């Protein structure tokens, strides 16, 4: 099938290495700080708390002491093929930019119907039930002018820190360059990750690290089989984690065994179980 984004020049995407991810949550905090995300007094109601980047805790479900926990950090997947949110938006408030692959959100167009929220299979969209945050605390003093604070009644989501792309482009033009280099534009979560678990780059550029990483047999995507073609990839050497990437029926999942990649032998469980 022809992909809708084949003719775009750039296709930004990320690979999150679950082996490196420590589950610390710095990406979530960095994202909220970068993008003026609202903070509320009670943030334990996860359906109403806004987290463009959110950690999902997963477990291998085995009994003590064979239990393992891990995390899926989940930004917007920036689906590349008919993003479900885009096709349902009645106000054209969200669209897939064919030139960058970024799924945008235009707050002033959003009428707050929350159809997109219902359509998103990843739960990556959030509705502003309240205004930015409690008044009179002086917390508006840390808001960045690069991202407009949202108002009550609109939906918001991860934008791959679009403002950073604009910034990188502006800098490149100022230096009389047409192209931005790999690493000049990365998202706030990529930059913040203290374990360097996130790699960000142009999936159309074979030289970029992300393009190499996505070919790896340990790399997978969430709910890959619904055909939304996400541009966020995950990478793990642990089989049980890869298996949780989709709703496999018994027998549907085939473990990765001894595949060659980049002239190196890989085995499926070099980590924990055989150690």
């Amino acid at each position: 099938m022809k992909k809708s984004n084949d003719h775009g020049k750039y296709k930004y995407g990320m690979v999150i290495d679950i082996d490196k991810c420590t589950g610390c949550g710095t990406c979530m905090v960095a994202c909220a700080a970068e993008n003026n995300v609202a903070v509320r007094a009670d943030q334990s109601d996860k359906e109403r708390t806004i987290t463009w980047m959110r950690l999902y805790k997963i477990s291998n479900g085995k009994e003590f002491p064979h239990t393992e926990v891990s995390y899926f950090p989940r930004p917007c997947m920036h689906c590349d093929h008919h993003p479900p949110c885009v096709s349902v938006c009645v106000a054209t408030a969200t669209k897939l930019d064919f030139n960058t692959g970024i799924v945008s959100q235009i707050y002033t167009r959003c009428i707050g119907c929350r159809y997109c929220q219902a359509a998103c299979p990843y739960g990556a969209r959030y509705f502003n039930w309240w205004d930015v945050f409690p008044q009179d605390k002086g917390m508006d003093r840390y808001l960045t002018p690069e991202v407009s604070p949202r108002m009550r009644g609109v939906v918001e989501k991860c934008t791959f820190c679009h403002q950073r792309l604009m910034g990188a482009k502006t800098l490149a033009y100022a230096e009389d360059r047409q192209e931005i280099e790999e690493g000049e534009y990365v998202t706030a979560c990529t930059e913040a990750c203290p374990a360097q678990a996130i790699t960000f780059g142009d999936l159309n550029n074979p030289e970029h690290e992300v393009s190499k990483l996505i070919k790896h047999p340990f790399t997978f995507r969430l709910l890959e089989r619904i055909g939304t073609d996400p541009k966020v990839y995950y990478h793990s050497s642990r089989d049980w984690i890869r298996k949780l990437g989709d709703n496999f029926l018994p027998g549907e999942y085939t473990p990765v065994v001894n595949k060659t990649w980049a002239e190196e032998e890989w085995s499926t469980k070099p980590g924990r179980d055989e150690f």
Partner: protein
Amino acid sequence: MKLTRRNFIAAVIGGVAGIQATPLPWKITDDIAIWTQNWPWVPVPSTGEFSDVSSVCNLCPGGCGIAVKKVDERAIKIEGRTDYPVNPGGVCPVGMGGLQLLYDESLRFTGPMKRVGLRGAGQFTEISWGEAFDMVAGRISGLRKKGTPEAIAAVDGNPEGTTVSVLIKRLMRAMGSPNYVRPPSINDTYRMGNLLMQGTLTPMAYDLENSDYVLSFGAGLLEGWGAPGRVMNAWGMWHDGNPAKKKTRIVQVESRASNTASKADMWVAPRPGTDGALALGIAHVIIKSGQYDSRFVSDHSSGFEDGRSLDGVNHIGFKTLVLEKYSPEQVAKITGVSPKTIVSLAKGFVSAKTPVAVYGKGKDSLNGSLYEFMAVQSLNALKGSINRSGGVLLPDPIPLSNLPLLEVDAVASKGLKTPRLDQAGTMRYPFSDSLINNFTEVIKKSSKSPVDTLLVFSANPFFTLPDGGGFKRALEKIPFIVSFSPYRDETANMAELILPDSTYLEKVDDIVWPTGLQYPLYGLSKPVVEPLYNTKNSGDTVIELSRAIDESVGSAFPWENFEEVLQVRAKGLFDAGGGLVSYDPDTPAWQRQTAGNGPKPEYESFDEMWEGIQSGGMWYRPVSSPRSWKGLFNTPSGKFEFSSKLIAQAIENYSNKISKKAALKNMGIAVTDDEACMAHYEAPKTGSDSSVYPLRMLPYEMINLASGWIPSPPFLYKTIFENQLLKDKSFAAINPKTAARYNLKEGALVAVKSPAGEVQVRINLSEGAMPGIVYLPLGFGHTAYDEFLKDKGVNPNNIVQAGQDPISGYPVWWDTPVKIVRV
């Protein structure tokens, strides 16, 4: 026109067609969207000139480098610095959210204040700095005039060795009180252990990055141990490239499937508090198989073999002790870890090239057990991993200058002769610096508090001490409390007077040797923004306060301001020669191998060096290659001591006063005196009835929640899972099997009761929890601060029934007997 059927249909069709053609409805929808979004209260952040300020994070003793983005005078984001040696680019979530601690006004004291409401109610009225100084100084000089300066006490949470803590100690001495106490930290355990086994006073230096086998006994490597930016960076590095060819293996010893335990290559789960026994079991296998580093053991250690002392008495050595009492089968009974696993751990440890055994208890903000540390350090010695790349390094202490000697006046010298309230450093606790739990007990039990005036610096002992709420009750008895906290924390709310510090982003301050770092580093944080409110750097406050007290105390502080003191101390860095004040990410500090005095300095004069430190925020000496053995160990034997002569001496000294049996009992030791000099395992003495309290409660720490004296930035509550905190209830993680015994389902509301008290929590069924243990998260349950943090969950410290660690006397906070009762 008459309304006929025909006309009606024409009008309807015409209308529908017209609406399709006109843009009006679409325009109206669009406009409504815009109109309903133009609320005057939606902030429009002002723009201006963008800039970056490099500084150092001072929220924990880790001291990561931070770059703060600014727009004009506003700080808008904190990011990790790539040009800082500790953390090449990353910081922890607490550091990332730091701006909320600066700008959330309801968390902070906006100026000096006097309490007007009841204690703990948090009602204050603003006063001037002059009034505040007059009130404290009046109280203190009154006590000095009465000749009872020892009734002044200070709780200081600033990390050991920082300039502000040096000044606070100096103030206490000048005033004449020995009662300077600190909240416990893992660094206390490291300090005592290193003193006893190595005779060194240098902070613990684990060369993690160069290690190929990290055997962590309880250190929460991914829970915030050490400098989180450093450890997590190492974690990423360890997992770079092909996992089948991974160079470094990580083994986590911990009773719960924490992030570190789950993400490690191997997880071993002994019963809480038995880590030391497990280490000795591993030592047994290593010694029995003869695979220990015989060169290190014979040339550079003492106390391994049995021996005869000068008085002709035979003493058993470490080898005999371990071979007799810690076989895998014996250890399996204590720890619950199978003999097979113990053997495989030993095999992994000896077959690695540069293994290191790391000791810790979660983050570094609570103490560990001295004998456990000694057991783990014995493993490093057996493998020869001491003074070797990838193991435990023994650099020189950081060469900061001492402040000029302090001459105290008659009142002070009399006061200083009074015994410390906490008995630290006495024959009973010969190696301890400060025992805040004892301090609490003395005050709690007294009819009239021996402390009249308590000064609290950078600490919130009301909340952070694992003492079953003991410090709170002690505070209630103390007549006059002064807090220097920038935040409206629980302890500050009990105070009569607040002399608020500026936050770490508004002041100059130093970070001395981040916990666990393998090379000396002196960090300097600087004001990123001008102080927002009428606050003052506590360093300056101490100097000004000393002058307000009286001339004699004031003369101990002949400096203009805090910054001058920083420079006086930093003079030593310059005099010591070799040091760097800038960092190139291409040559990580742990990769550089420099001999002797360190690298060629990057500066020629002190001023040049100081300028470099101020702009870069660092002075450091990269990792040195293994050092000459000569004079390396400053123990009585001049060697690494498996069997500590200092402990032997201490027991003997004490036995000369009272009987040996009584001495050992008072020191909390249940074994013979030979064994007491070495790492060994003793079951904690809880003295509680296990039929009444069948379970154990273990507090646990998370990297995404601040559990120390710093409040959590509200952003962090986004990262907390709904099975850790839901509305106002936090969760106890327990194993489904344990829960089944009490017929408890996920989310059930229960009371966890210990002899010290009870807390109400919900149940989280967690396979990763050891059966029989109730795990409660630390960091929830604040009764102070604002609506973001207040009344969310419970603080497990409130029900901790802490025993005393043998010899050190530090609290054993990991062994509270509890029961669960359904609410």
